[in-house]
């Protein structure tokens, strides 16, 4: 067997990011769709924002270990969808560019009781022109908000899909992903790259 045969047999991989505030249900959503596989990264704390050069000597080099939610959905022998739950806390910001490069799109999971928790994620994907949908994880007892109200609160473009889901349910979580991929297709077909209507939400 020639080595090019290996290349031909390599499945096409695409990645979908699951973002949102801490405790909003990212792990639950990934877990509803597929087995969660352990994945960690150990990164140097020398990204922009630390303000200190930590690379001058081994004794001052500090690393942080971050566990991620990682899942794999095998569509066919030739196509695999990878899900990455992006760590929400601000101190893990440095990992986002790495994860989001080349992504099919992102799901921003939101809790209507704490909408502000997803502002950063929305700002981030708008800035990068990454296709994304907002999924409202409808926790039991959460107050009903109509879509217009949520759209206003999040300062979202009119075309941006807002879906309601129950991250514990497989079908519901799957529908969120389907909405995202349809949105990415629509964006690709129109060729229109989506620009942020305004600056930061802060």
């Amino acid at each position, binding site marked *: 067997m020639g080595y090019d045969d290996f290349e031909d047999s390599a499945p096409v991989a695409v990645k979908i990011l699951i973002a949102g505030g801490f405790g909003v249900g990212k792990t639950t959503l990934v877990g509803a769709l597929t087995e969660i596989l352990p994945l960690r990264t150990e990164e140097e704390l020398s990204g922009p924002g630390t303000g200190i050069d930590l690379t001058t000597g081994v004794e001052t080099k500090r690393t942080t270990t971050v566990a991620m939610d990682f899942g794999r959905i095998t569509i066919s022998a030739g*196509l695999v969808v990878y899900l990455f739950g992006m760590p929400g806390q601000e101190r893990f910001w440095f990992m986002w560019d790495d994860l989001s490069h080349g992504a099919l799109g992102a799901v921003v999971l939101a809790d209507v009781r704490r909408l502000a928790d997803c502002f950063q994620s929305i700002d981030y994907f708008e800035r990068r022109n990454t296709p994304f949908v907002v999924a409202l994880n409808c926790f039991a007892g959460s107050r009903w908000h109509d879509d217009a109200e949520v759209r206003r609160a999040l300062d979202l473009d009119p075309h941006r899909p807002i879906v309601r889901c129950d991250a514990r349910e497989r079908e519901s979580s799957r529908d969120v992903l389907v909405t995202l991929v349809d949105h990415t297709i629509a964006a*690709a077909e129109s060729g229109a790259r989506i620009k942020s209507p305004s600056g930061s939400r802060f």
Partner: protein
Amino acid sequence: MTQAVDPSDDLRTHRGPSPVVRPYALVRGRTKPTGDSLDVISMAYALRMSVPDPADLEPEHLALLRRCAVPMSVADLASTLDLPLGVIRILLADLRDRKLIRIHRPRAEPLTDIRLLREVADGLRRL
């Protein structure tokens, strides 16, 4: 009586509950891989399984090479071998430098291949 160790065994089964060395000791303190950066969904596959100088490689390099007998993503390799992504990237770059593996990069950004996107959408609908 000693027992032969199957070379294909998962490293994890021999390492016990916690690693004896911190992962970065494996890569001798390096924090950046050589050459092009590796995406988490880049696919690595072995070009050959025989290593000319196994002595200058760590057991983890060899374990990685074995896993790459079929194309494997960087994230899958990190998960399977229970090593941080950063360490896996450095080890894979070492193998690439020695021409033992080839790395297939994912599609360029933005993802605008409509046929591929429809295949993903249809596949997800069938879940």
